């Protein structure tokens, strides 16, 4: 097993050994199920001119939210590893710095995907018809989105000294990122400056890709294309990987 996989495995094993976390990650989608099912059912019907309900518009954002939060908060283990001394042993090992980052990203992505995959099927409550293909494609898109966002999470985790600091900063960063990604409202109806921000926001592309694979037949005019979106997400992920590797080289853990 190579170093990055070993690092990833430890994230997953650590998670699985904490019963409270495992239970929370299973119950959260259950709660979503209940609230979406009960709440959204009637209230968000018909606002899209093409006959789709707001709830099916809103749903991809919900999945992305759960996915991204799960992934990014997993990267907190980097700060914990620094605090409890574990990180120093990793830093003096003869592995490339990017392998350290990649391992953490892989581990966090796997855990984020668990959330994402558990919530994804709830799409049927919002009127999304899944086929095997569209489900698989959705999972692939979620993997790419988790990859890029866990990279972002690592970069912040590396540079922040405390877990509290991380929570504070991540909330300041994540919520606007999510709000301005097309999860709540489309770019087409929003003020021009919002439009620019949304275009510059990598999460917009993640959301766009997910929408496109969830509704394969549909024509979207106001969101980026599938291949462009995937390319942006992968690119952003690789950028985060590179910046994080540089950050490690510059500063000790």
């Amino acid at each position, binding site marked *: *097993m*190579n*170093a990055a*996989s*070993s690092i990833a495995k*430890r994230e997953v*094993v*650590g998670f699985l*050994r904490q019963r409270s976390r495992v239970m929370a990650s299973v119950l959260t989608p259950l709660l979503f199920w209940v609230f979406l099912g009960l709440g959204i059912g009637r209230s968000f019907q018909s606002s899209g001119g093409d006959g789709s309900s707001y709830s099916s518009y809103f749903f991809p954002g919900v999945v992305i939210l759960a996915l991204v939060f799960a992934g990014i908060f997993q990267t907190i283990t980097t700060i914990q590893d620094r605090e*409890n*001394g*574990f990180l*120093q*042993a*990793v*830093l*003096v*090992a*003869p*592995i*490339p710095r990017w392998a350290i980052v990649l391992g953490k990203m892989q581990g966090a992505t796997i855990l984020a995907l668990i959330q994402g995959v558990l919530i994804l099927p709830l799409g049927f409550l919002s009127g999304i018809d899944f086929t095997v293909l569209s489900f698989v494609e959705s999972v692939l898109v979620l993997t790419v989105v988790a990859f890029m966002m866990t990279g972002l999470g690592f970069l912040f985790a590396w540079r922040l*000294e405390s877990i509290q600091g991380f929570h504070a900063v991540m909330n300041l960063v994540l919520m606007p990122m999510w709000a301005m990604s097309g999860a709540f409202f489309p770019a087409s109806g929003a003020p021009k400056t919002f439009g620019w921000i949304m275009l510059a926001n990598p999460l917009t592309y993640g959301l766009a890709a997910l929408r496109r694979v969830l509704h394969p037949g549909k024509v979207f005019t106001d969101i980026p294309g599938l291949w462009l979106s995937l390319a942006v997400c992968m690119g952003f992920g690789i950028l985060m990987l590179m910046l994080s590797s540089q950050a490690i080289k510059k500063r*000790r*853990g």
Partner: protein
Amino acid sequence: MNDSIPALEIQDLVKLYGERRALDGVSFSVETGKIFALLGPNGGGKSTLFRVLSTLTHPDGGRASVLGHDVVKEPGAVRARIGVVFQNPSLDKKLRVRENLQYQGTLYGLAGQELEQRIDELLERFHLVDRSGDLVEVLSGGLARRVEIAKGLLHKPRLLLLDEPSTGLDPGARRELWNQLSAVREEDGTSIILTTHILDEAEGCDRIVLLDRGRVVAEGEPAALKKEVSPSMISIRCARPEMLLEELREKRGLEGRVVHDTVRIPTDQGPEFVAELAEELGDRVRSIAIGQATLEDVFLARTGVDFGDRDQQEAEAEASRSKKKGNR
């Protein structure tokens, strides 16, 4: 394999923390196959040096090479060849002993049968076989330290670097640690370099470097350094050491220093001289003894400051620095 490559070669090493010169032009070299101590009081620079050598941090000036590889230019090569044992725990407490070693192995490119066999070997050697399935968090400090050392040796490094290895160990555990380290040096030919502020510990090493305020103040074999200060030392404990020293200076032309309540007088004379002094000084002294010079004497001779006092000074300086910084 070229045995004449030094284990360490350090030239004019400088490390700054803000304005503070933690390392201020340190130079020395260490042969392979020795147990070598970086000795010094708090703030002396030994932990900083440890961090540079273990590639955790870059120096701000000068060069350091470990087994022929520069720590800045070839960190990968250095990392592959050294084993590191940190002062504070570096194990995952929520993993088992064996799992920690397996994880470590993968970081060093070990896998499969080879890794398992090596782990078994080390568990055996460090008497950890029956604890291998325990979570690290249930181990005592001494046991955990043993696991850390086993972890450091997993990939058969040519050099083992330890930072204050006796920290938190009781005397029995310390003795055991030293036996283990000697065995490692004997059986594997591994060079051992450790930092310490415990003078007694350094006495048992092959060579030492004494660091004070980022500078080398002494280097060499402990026995030689001590003899250089003096063949012997007379210690006189009394109520008014400064007065006594003054008197001995005037009456007998003796030189010495005062350390707290003791007058330390270097001499090449023997016990008869002590008897003579004891008779002459009578009740004015609490005790009088003769012995070898100690590394404390070496430090005092080279810096003019008592080792314990310097330790204290630096601890206070560190505390006020932390206060000024506020949060970390």
